[in-house]
């Protein structure tokens, strides 16, 4: 199947989109071209603010009151969308082009039943009877693998889980058999294992329904798993387009290469192959430089070639499939030489045990005030947020706690920090038992030696205080210094430490970018010389290139100070990259723990295995076995009896899993697996990841077939 014989579904030519604000006209997307053929999937990838969602909304011509298409054309099956009447547009939306959204809960109307929302589509577009609409909708729900379709039809959106909601949204989009499907970050709001199921479904759509797809994502790994071609966007422009194989393996734009250097691919390693962040930051739309937008951040920048005029998209010669780049100097760059490797570090010596968690439990009481519950004496139930946790962390060690929502990792952090007290068990930190002492009652040295970096950069700093006053408060509070001049001096040195300019002292948080705020958060955590820092998903709200910079910063300081880092995350790629040891949690319990190498190789706990398989990997030389979990994440309020994972476990061996807590199997030193399956059986399981031969340059679809190999 070559491009020439297929019909184009959508042709975008020289598209320009602007927003009108108080500051004037701001170009959001400039000179954008894209053609999509029948049954083809194209990924649009870029960091926040690059214009990828704007393109999708322009295809729907849904721009809001302050945005508009100022140039170019969008032809859908030959008809120009930019010149359609409102009525034509309405008839096209939802029937010929359909969309799937980032947050399924928000995309569904909370006060209409799911049935009513689905049935609307065929009723409006095809004028079918209610009865037929009902049947079609129900059948479509079965097609997207929702069990018990009739019950879902009658339910309201809040009564089903997030993954199910997204399946409903997908069903709604497919009901009218659209020719083109727009997917705007469809899995960003979902848990990893739930995401895997949705991605599998999306990958099937093209073959089952022959629908062309535009898949918008910030995640290169997801695009690799779902798309045939990719378009990389930067600052309102497409900078590189081509097949997955071409762009992933023979990229011809420095930004694309920068992105790949900044994400923790399996080949990266914190000691000898560290991540390389892209220097600088994304220019604001009204502050874009002349010439190449990426110029100021590009190591190959040449003012004569790149610094002025318009840089056009040009075809890369000698490529069998169309491959274009917006780099003026791509012929001069040696693409085989790996660019400036980050600094190579010696592995750190681990010290004594700093933290010891021994059978720690945290239960919350839940009061049920219904009369029935009171009569039966079950008025109070317990939410077992943490169930018998035991693990250790040593000096200068990075321990990752991994799990999906509701696994209890945040509760654990609260107990450790003294915002809650433990129900049972011990937490020994620097030889003190701290499980029962609230933070206000802890001695100052203890408080200052146990600090935290938070998840959301927009939330981590008090918006009404300057950066300087927030850091100096910590210094004074922890008694590091009290003399105003010395405090000021210390703040300055901390700003240096996190690589922020000293004049940030007087700035307020709203004047900082997300990554800069997160750096201030790091400076604040390290202000009192902590011996241990808990980082709760510190990267998940940041863009890819910023993530790399914050990761490296965190690790540099951790290395220099010899701090123990407890890294809470759901992202196994990052965890593999930086952690020394990993603790895998599920519904409040530890499923598996061990060194990073042990966790990422058999024997696995079946949950770890599924979690690993769910990680999208942006490396075409790595293949993986697909394991998609059935069912929903159970609620913490009502967890399954026996092994908490038995309701979704593909390796469940029988009734014993439902009735008995699994034994903790020990495989060597610190590697522990809580499972009923014998260790020997688990050892026989094949690795999730395997190496695939890099496909020969001529075969453009090699990368995607490698994934399909199960």
């Amino acid at each position, binding site marked *: 199947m070559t491009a020439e014989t297929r019909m184009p579904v959508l042709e975008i030519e020289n598209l320009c989109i602007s927003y009108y604000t108080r500051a004037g006209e701001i170009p959001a997307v400039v000179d954008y071209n894209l053609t999509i053929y029948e049954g083809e999937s194209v990924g649009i990838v870029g960091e926040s603010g690059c214009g990828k969602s704007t393109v999708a909304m322009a295809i729907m011509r849904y721009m809001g009151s302050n945005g508009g298409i100022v140039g170019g054309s969008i032809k859908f099956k030959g008809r120009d969308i930019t010149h359609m009447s409102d009525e034509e547009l309405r008839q096209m939306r939802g029937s010929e082009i359909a969309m799937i959204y980032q947050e399924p809960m928000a995309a569904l109307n909370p006060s209409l039943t799911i049935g009513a929302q689905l049935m609307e589509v065929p009723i409006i577009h095809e004028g079918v009877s209610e009865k037929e609409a009902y049947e079609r909708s129900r059948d479509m729900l079965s097609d997207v693998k929702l069990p018990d379709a009739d019950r879902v039809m009658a339910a309201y959106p809040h009564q089903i889980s997030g993954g199910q909601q997204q399946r409903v949204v997908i069903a709604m989009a497919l009901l009218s058999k659209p020719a083109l499907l727009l997917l705007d970050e469809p899995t960003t709001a979902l848990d990893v294992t739930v995401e895997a199921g949705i991605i599998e479904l999306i990958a099937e759509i093209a073959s089952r329904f022959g629908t062309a797809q535009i898949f918008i994502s910030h995640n290169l790994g997801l695009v690799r798993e779902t798309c045939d071609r990719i378009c990389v966007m930067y600052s309102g422009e497409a900078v590189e387009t081509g097949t997955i194989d071409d762009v992933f393996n023979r990229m011809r734009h420095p930004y694309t290469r920068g992105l790949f250097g900044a994400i923790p691919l399996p080949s990266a390693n914190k000691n000898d192959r560290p991540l390389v962040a892209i220097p600088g930051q994304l220019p*604001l739309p009204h502050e874009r430089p002349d010439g190449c937008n990426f110029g100021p951040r590009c190591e190959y920048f040449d003012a004569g070639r790149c610094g002025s005029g318009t840089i056009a998209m040009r075809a890369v010669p000698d490529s069998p499939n169309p491959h274009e780049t917006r780099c003026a100097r791509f012929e001069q760059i040696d693409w085989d030489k790996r660019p400036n490797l980050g600094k190579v570090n010696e592995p750190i010596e681990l010290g004594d045990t700093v933290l010891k968690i021994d059978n720690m439990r945290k239960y919350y009481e839940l009061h049920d005030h219904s009369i029935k519950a009171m009569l039966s004496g079950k008025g109070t139930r317990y939410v077992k947020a943490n169930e018998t946790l035991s693990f250790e962390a040593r000096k200068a060690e990075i321990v990752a706690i991994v799990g999906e929502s509701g696994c209890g990792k945040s509760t654990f952090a609260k107990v450790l920090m003294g915002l809650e007290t433990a129900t049972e068990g011990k937490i020994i930190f620097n030889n003190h038992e701290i499980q029962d002492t609230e933070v206000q009652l802890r001695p100052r040295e203890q408080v200052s030696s146990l600090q935290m970096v938070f998840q959301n950069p927009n939330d981590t700093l008090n918006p009404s205080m300057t950066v300087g006053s927030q850091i100096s408060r910590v210094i004074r509070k922890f008694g590091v210094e009290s003399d105003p001049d010395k405090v000021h001096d210390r703040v300055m040195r901390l700003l240096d430490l996190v690589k922020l300019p000293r004049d940030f002292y007087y700035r307020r948080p709203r004047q900082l970018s997300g990554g800069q705020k997160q750096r201030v958060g790091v400076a604040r955590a390290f202000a009192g010389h902590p011996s241990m820092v808990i980082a709760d998903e510190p990267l998940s709200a940041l863009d890819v290139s910023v993530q790399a910079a914050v990761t490296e910063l965190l690790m540099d300081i951790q290395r220099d100070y010899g701090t123990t880092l407890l890294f809470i995350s759901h992202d196994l790629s990052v965890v593999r990259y930086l952690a020394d040891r990993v603790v895998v949690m599920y519904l409040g319990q530890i499923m598996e723990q061990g060194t990073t190498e042990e966790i990422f190789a058999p024997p696995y706990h079946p949950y770890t295995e599924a979690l690993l398989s769910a990680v999208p990997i942006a490396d075409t030389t790595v293949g993986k076995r697909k394991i998609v979990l059935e069912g929903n994440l159970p609620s913490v309020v009502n967890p399954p009896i026996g092994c908490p994972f038995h309701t979704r476990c593909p390796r469940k061996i029988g009734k014993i899993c439902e009735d008995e807590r699994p034994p903790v199997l020990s495989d060597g030193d610190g590697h522990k697996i809580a499972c009923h399956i014998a260790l020997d059986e688990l050892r026989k399981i094949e690795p999730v990841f395997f190496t695939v031969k890099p496909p020969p340059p001529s075969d453009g679809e090699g990368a995607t077939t490698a994934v399909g190999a199960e």
Partner: protein
Amino acid sequence: MTATDSFAEPLPEREAALVRFLKSFALIRESGVGMVGVGIVVGWVLIAIFASLLAPFDPNATILPYQRPGAVDPATGMTFWFGTDQIGRDILSRIIWGGQRVLIYGPIATICAYAVGILMGLAAGYFRGWWDSILSRVADIILSFPIFVLYVIVISTFGASGLNIVLAIVFASAPGIMRIVRGLTLDLRNRDYVAAAQTRGESPLRIMFVEILPNARGPLIVDACLRLGYVTITIGTLGFLGLGLPPPDPDWGGMVNEGRAMALAFPHMTVIPCLAISSLVLGLNLMADGLREISIRD
């Protein structure tokens, strides 16, 4: 948001909290409707401040009764621009001095109500648990009284004095403010910077007043403008019902009440004070709307 254009501006040195507070008002320039409101309010404030210079007559002096607007006092040759009332006092002078009275009692009552409401709301929202249960229940009960029924009983029982009116207004408004502050606190207490303060062992008092309250100021400023307008209405209405500030000092609501009997023959006695109070409240409400519009935009 990412870094904004303020990068280009010279960085401000440490500024006083008060300056910052006033700066949040300064943004109202960008709302046309809001500026009209500011104009009206500033106008009334100036009139109140310079009442002694602006008022042509002694507001309580009985000169000539039943003069229509524009009539001339034969004794002094001065004009009664707004006429006189049934016992011969100059209405313009009474409007000016009445404005001063409203602009003293209104803000005092509002500020006191805010002090009480903020304390209650912070405590209920931050500590939750039984603090919240008790304070919320108390607020619910006070709010379940139709407000003027409450005023009528309280003031008719304890007598109409400036102090009693202020106390009654504080009693009746604090629960509403408490609910707003409580709602904001419940939201803000979950922010990471509050958690950061907790994990470094800050006292609840400091967390409430340094980490939470300053970040709730936007909605509270808007509400304060609206509430000041409402308090103005309340003071006027109490005056109209004969429960207001004691005579003979001028009071807008009281003037309407006194002029009511003559309303058919001399409408200026009632219409003019009504215009005065309506314009002041309108100014405050427009100002609040402008501030709200701006706070949403950013």
